[in-house]
């Protein structure tokens, strides 16, 4: 994969999107835990 090529850009975008997705999943879990506690 060439740095800066289309495949590379797709890979970087997918990594960013997956990171955001996992963060939201984790945030959802923590919010639910806090809701149960309160």
């Amino acid at each position: 994969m060439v740095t800066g090529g289309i495949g590379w850009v797709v890979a970087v975008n997918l990594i960013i999107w997956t990171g955001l997705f996992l963060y939201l999943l984790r945030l959802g879990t923590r919010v639910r835990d806090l809701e149960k506690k309160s």
Partner: protein
Amino acid sequence: MEPLKKLLAGLLWLWMSAVIAGAFLYAPLARGFIGQSSRILFFHVPMAWVSFVAFIAAGIWSLRFLYGGRQPRHDRAAAAAVELGLTFGVLATVTGALWARVMWGAYWNWDPRQTSIVVALLFYGAYLALRSSLEDRDQRARLSAAYAVLGLVVAPFLFFIMPRIMFSLHPQSVINAQGKVEMEPRMVQVLLAGSAGATALFFWIHNLQCRLAALLERNSAPLE
């Protein structure tokens, strides 16, 4: 997480991953654009769209607050929608400015569409300023709801009417003035899929934000 919610979240991940891959590997380049710059379209337009959806949703939640029993959850929903609308609006502005740099040679050109989105951001920035300036919870909710309802007229004007009544360097809208779609079908597919996915993402984040705001209001629970 409940199984259905897990499934929906997984589907959204797949959907948006397909949109990302489609934007770079499936959709062709638009004619008349420099290099690969036209691919910004698949991120720029959905962000602007979600920003508009968020501002309209804020207006609707505000109406529900004013005429639906003054429930605090509607006030929280409206405020969260404005915050997200501003976030997506800033992202749309930044991606638009990057595209403008490639196509028109400058990040900022005072194009009617650039100007109108900045005015929209200022309008909704003022909503947050209004909220933070009022300490009384009821008064804050009532006044900011009235302001957001005004946005139901302001947002459509700034997003759709003003850019069309003035000369603009901006490429034609997806649906042109004659009501026709003049875009390669594969581009339309990726664009619509991206807009739908971004809208779903907005409602997901909005849900989390409302729940967090409710928790903070209830007991000021710190996250860490």
